[in-house]
């Protein structure tokens, strides 16, 4: 079999491993792996390598990690970061300006109408 055919099968290893290969192509690859020692060995190495990465243990952050981050944020913001923000900080200035105009207009209309 020409090298290109082996390469074409190798190009599908990832999709085959992830089971995202089309059914027809997966069957072709399975049949090829059953008869081609070279590709079978390569696929086993491929599967072994990906399996080794997937099998790595999960690392956990230190127990007091949230305290460490909170301390860093406090230090860098000189203690100003946390704490509920004032109404004026949470509502955009444009909305406050429109509200103020509406109130002034309402008062003006009320005075004029009396």
């Amino acid at each position, binding site marked *: 079999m020409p090298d290109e055919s082996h390469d074409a099968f*190798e*190009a599908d*290893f*990832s*999709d085959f*491993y992830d089971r995202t290969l089309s059914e027809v192509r997966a069957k072709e690859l399975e049949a090829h792996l059953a008869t081609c020692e070279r590709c079978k060995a390569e696929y*086993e*190495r*491929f599967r*072994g*390598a*990906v*399996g*080794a*990465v*997937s*099998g*790595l*243990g*999960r*690392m*956990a*952050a*230190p127990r007091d*990690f*949230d305290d*460490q*981050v*909170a301390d*860093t*944020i406090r230090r*860098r913001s000189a203690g100003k*970061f*946390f*704490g*509920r*923000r004032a109404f004026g900080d*949470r509502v955009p200035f444009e909305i406050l300006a429109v509200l103020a105009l509406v109130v002034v207009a309402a008062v003006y209309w009320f005075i004029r109408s009396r």
Partner: protein
Amino acid sequence: MSLRERLLLRRLRDRDERAFREMVEAYQDQVFNLLFRMIGKREEAEDLAQEVFVTVFKSIDQFRGESKLSTWLYRIAANHCKNRIKYLARRHDRSTSQLDETMERAAAAQGGAPVGAGRIDAPDQALEGAETERIVQRAIADLDEDHRLVIVLRDIEELAYEEICAITGLPEGTVKSRLHRARLALKEKLAKYG
């Protein structure tokens, strides 16, 4: 984005410290694991994880909630990783000789068989040894940073392609082909280290 995430985001924008702690506790291990597997050093990963969460809080007002909070966090973590990897490369901060000794000892303990060939056929068995884990970690660290990121997101964090696309900003076809090349490169590196 779920309703729970939206409520949390609202509290985060109000700079509510309890909300901040909830978020850190919910995502710290995911972020730390990603960073550790990308960088390969615990101290660096701890330092970088802090920077990720500090960035999250600095830029929380800019997050529009168009993606999941975890996706946004992963994206920030990935960007920090890229910068740190470049910085470390400039500093030549890689203890190569120490890792080589580790690999030699591991190979000797396994009868000199290549880590990526044959001996790793049963990954569960092979990974029982901390030495083998270090070799796999070293192989990941030797990949170029783009390959490293997709392999960590897909094969370690077990994220769906859709989420990897959202994190990297790449189309699905590019992510798939990059992942395939990364896995092939990893296979060769593991075989070589044996």
